[in-house]
């Protein structure tokens, strides 16, 4: 397998650590099993909480029959809406208004299957689990509705429509070539390998918590608000996090552990079961998307209209913003997009790796491929003809835009030039072969963070920042950034992360973590060097400088800042079974300065694997009768396994933003964007049939011809 190669050119004076491959600082701990995740940090006298969730989709709790359970061996208490301490719910934070899901046991209403209804506390995990299974909860049920459809009468436009309806219709009508297609994606779940776990105890008047999350300062702040505590009275740590992908904001396990530790006056651990992750930690809504493209015969876009529909819960609005993907992709004469949302009796969806961009890119990048087919133009050529000078909605210039460089280098490595554009003509035994491509984009944001850097008396440096390393390699990346900022070898940097006592910092989300934290570390290092330049010796306790990047981020010029990428896939489709096998994938990215090529490659490849998994495997099925899932486990919800993953390669091109003091763009999400479209476009190239509904299951491949005809007849 080819090792990823690429060059990066930063706009900071580098000491050579950034841009050179380094293994992870915590690598030895991870391969020897000594890295402790949230549920594994020893707390003496630990009690165990097992959560009981609702089995009905809508109604009220009429009874929680605790007597029998309280008599069971080892059971300490049962918390429920009738006896739980009160929580505050009138605050707003980074993610909006207080999430009703975190208001555990505050009222008797049940808004979906899998809603928290009781917490059984016991001396051992086995006793807690048995008692939780035995607990009888009675409900007064009400009719529920979990059926998502874009025509649902409760649906509404979420936020303002972008662009003009009349103008777009006029441009479509005037177009020589039109694509008008409907795409769907199913409900998808994060499923980090580490289920959510938290341990809480009161220690000397402070609530001390070990949690699995994407931002310990964020979680500490939310716990302080929920429990009406001073911010200084809460400490949250999350040194090792077993995957997150958006699922690990403040989630019920940490609220439950804190509540139970308060009631029991002893340490409590709460671990969610894999099944409970289907209803308590967010997920990606199913989407329906209608894309209309109008173009001249040479592929020049005159109109682009993207309407996206998603679901939310009855009690909190979360919008999967799929329609926003095209805002800066192309330069049509007329552009319109709108996101619509349908409230149902389901859990609230949430941010899941590339929220909006992942399903949005599937629809738009497949539609672009369909347009290329109709125009008889190579899909890369068609994209090159529609490169915009500025963001089509904002009118702002791009900080850097190297999409075409990704396509050029990717096409060269993939061997795109030899591709025969005709679909359905390559056969190898019972396999039909095809290749496909798609574009990727993800915004490069940044948020204020604080950091401290200490010069130690022994000549080393300690960096403290409430960053989270959820598997991204952030810990190592920040050590390299600090080394270059201090102009010392990485071996002289100690890095400490994921402790809310280090102060507020951006969460590991939105591909903004490393960029935001690196900015704070660089500023703190600069401040420290100024202090050190004043002379004198470093005192025994060290010399510390702090930074808060709020002001410098505020001064950043207004531009369209994004990572871009080009995805390529080759598939084989079994004509007998309908099975689709991806044979190889290549992703080329323009994503700013690459801090650590070793871990960056892993992140890009991981994202591409998510795209493959989204294209072929992932689909949570909801049962209309019960309102819950069918097969809510890792046997029923398929994610890509070893045997599904072929030869993969990822690389990157130079991508410099001249007026950005950090130059890092963030790479956690760009890898998934466009990947499912590249696979779907390759399936078309192999078979001659467009698959507009994900996942591309064998049954869909086998029945595709007839479905296609039925769809055409019904349209």
């Amino acid at each position, binding site marked *: 397998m080819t090792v990823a190669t690429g060059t990066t050119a930063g706009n900071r004076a580098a000491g050579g650590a950034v841009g050179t491959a380094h293994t992870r600082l915590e*690598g030895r701990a991870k391969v020897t099993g000594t890295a402790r995740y949230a549920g594994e940090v020893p707390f003496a006298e630990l009690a165990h909480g097992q959560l009981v969730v609702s089995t009905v989709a809508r109604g009220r709790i009429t009874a929680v029959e605790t007597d029998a359970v309280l008599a069971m061996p080892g059971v300490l208490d049962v918390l429920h809406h009738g006896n739980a301490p009160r929580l505050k719910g009138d605050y707003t934070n980074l993610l909006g208004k207080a999430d009703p899901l975190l208001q555990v046991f505050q009222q008797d209403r049940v808004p979906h299957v899998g809603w928290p209804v009781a917490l059984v506390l016991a001396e051992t995990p086995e006793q807690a689990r048995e008692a939780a299974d035995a607990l009888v909860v009675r409900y007064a049920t009400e009719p529920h509705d979990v059926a998502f459809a874009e025509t649902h009468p409760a649906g509404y436009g979420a936020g303002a429509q972008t662009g003009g309806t009349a103008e777009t219709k006029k441009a479509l009508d005037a177009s020589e070539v039109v694509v008008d297609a409907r795409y769907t994606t199913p409900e998808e779940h994060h499923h980090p390998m580490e289920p959510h776990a938290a341990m809480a105890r009161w220690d000397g008047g402070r609530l001390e918590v070990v949690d699995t999350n994407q931002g310990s300062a964020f979680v500490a702040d939310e716990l302080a608000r929920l429990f009406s505590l001073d911010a200084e009275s809460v400490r949250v740590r999350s040194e090792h996090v077993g995957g997150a992908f958006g699922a690990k904001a403040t989630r019920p396990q940490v609220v439950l552990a804190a509540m139970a530790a308060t009631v029991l006056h002893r340490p409590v651990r709460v671990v969610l079961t894999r099944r409970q992750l289907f209803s308590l930690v967010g997920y990606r809504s199913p989407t329906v998307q209608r894309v209309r493209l109008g173009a001249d015969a040479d592929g020049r876009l005159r109109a682009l209209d993207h309407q996206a529909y998603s679901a939310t819960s009855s009690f909190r609005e979360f919008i999967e913003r799929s329609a926003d993907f095209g805002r800066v992709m192309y330069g049509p004469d007329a552009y319109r997009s709108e996101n619509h949302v349908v409230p149902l009796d389901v859990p609230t969806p949430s941010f899941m790796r590339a929220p909006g961009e992942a399903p949005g890119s599937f629809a738009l990048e497949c539609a672009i491929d369909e347009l290329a087919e109709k125009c008889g133009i190579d899909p890369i050529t068609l994209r090159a003809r529609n490169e915009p000078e500025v963001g089509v909605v904002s009118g702002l210039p791009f900080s850097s835009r190297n999409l075409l460089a990704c396509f050029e280098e990717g096409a060269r490595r993939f061997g795109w030039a030899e591709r025969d554009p005709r679909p359905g003509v390559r056969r190898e035994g019972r396999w039909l072969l095809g290749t496909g491509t798609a574009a990727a984009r993800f915004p490069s944001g940044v948020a204020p963070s604080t950091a401290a850097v200490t010069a130690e008396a022994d000549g080393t440096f300690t960096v403290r920042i409430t960053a989270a390393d959820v598997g991204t390699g952030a810990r190592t990346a920040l050590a390299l950034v600090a080394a270059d900022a201090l102009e010392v070898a990485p071996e002289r940097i100690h890095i400490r992360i994921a402790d809310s006592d280090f102060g507020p910092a951006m969460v590991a989300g939105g591909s903004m973590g490393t960029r935001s934290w690196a900015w704070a570390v660089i500023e703190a290092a600069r401040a420290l060097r100024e202090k050190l330049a004043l002379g004198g010796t470093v005192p025994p306790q060290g010399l510390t400088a702090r930074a808060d990047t709020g002001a410098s981020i505020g001064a950043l010029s207004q531009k369209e800042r994004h990572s871009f990428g080009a995805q390529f896939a080759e598939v084989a489709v079994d004509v007998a079974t309908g099975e689709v096998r991806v044979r190889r994938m290549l992703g080329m990215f323009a994503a700013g300065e690459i801090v650590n090529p070793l871990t960056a490659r892993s992140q890009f490849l991981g994202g591409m694997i998510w795209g493959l998994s989204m294209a072929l495997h992932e689909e949570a099925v909801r049962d209309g009768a019960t309102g819950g899932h069918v097969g809510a486990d890792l046997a029923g919800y398929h994610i890509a396994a070893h045997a599904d993953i072929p030869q993969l390669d990822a690389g990157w091109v130079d991508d410099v933003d001249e007026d950005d003091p950090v130059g890092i763009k963030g790479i956690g999400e760009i890898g998934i964007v466009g990947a499912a479209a590249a696979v779907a476009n390759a399936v078309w190239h192999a078979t001659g049939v467009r698959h507009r509904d994900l996942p591309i299951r064998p049954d869909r491949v086998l029945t595709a011809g007839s479905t296609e005809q039925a769809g055409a007849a019904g349209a």
Partner: protein
Amino acid sequence: MPPSTPSESSAPSPTSSGISLRVNGETYALPVDHRTTLLDALRERLDLTGTKKGCDHGQCGACTVLVDGRRSLACLQLAVATEGREVTTIEGVADGDQLHPVQQAFLDLDGYQCGYCTPGQICSALGVIEEHAAGWPSAVTADIAPQAAPAPLDAAEIRERMSGNLCRCGAYASIVEAVARAADGSSAGVRGTEVTA
């Protein structure tokens, strides 16, 4: 080792028994609830938390350990049924400070991201290398006739044999490279430079 909890005395009872577990060459005598899985006994009673609980249903492979040298899912096995057998967990794979070649390859080639599936992947890889060396075929082995020469442990063989170990971060490509390198016994071409801090 955490203190034993009040409800589990060492006296025999209808719901608990005193057992002796052999783990990483050590013998542990402990009372266990009959319902306690090997996974929970390792994690909760012996403080060997390197073996991970990903699903508790035998679907993800994060709890893979070696029992008498063969791959086994610790979440599907009762602790009482493991008595008298030799259990190897991730904590017993390295030779003191000297990493096993499989561990070293995972570290050098970045065969992980979040690290939560890693102990299971590594234990599984140890099993794969042994099973292959013993001539056991897999579902992708072309010639499974008894007299056939062992097929090389190529990427397709590794992928097939490792498919019981899910990795949600998607580190599969590097894991396959790491297993291949370790099986090969080669340590050339280290991709990353180790930094200690």
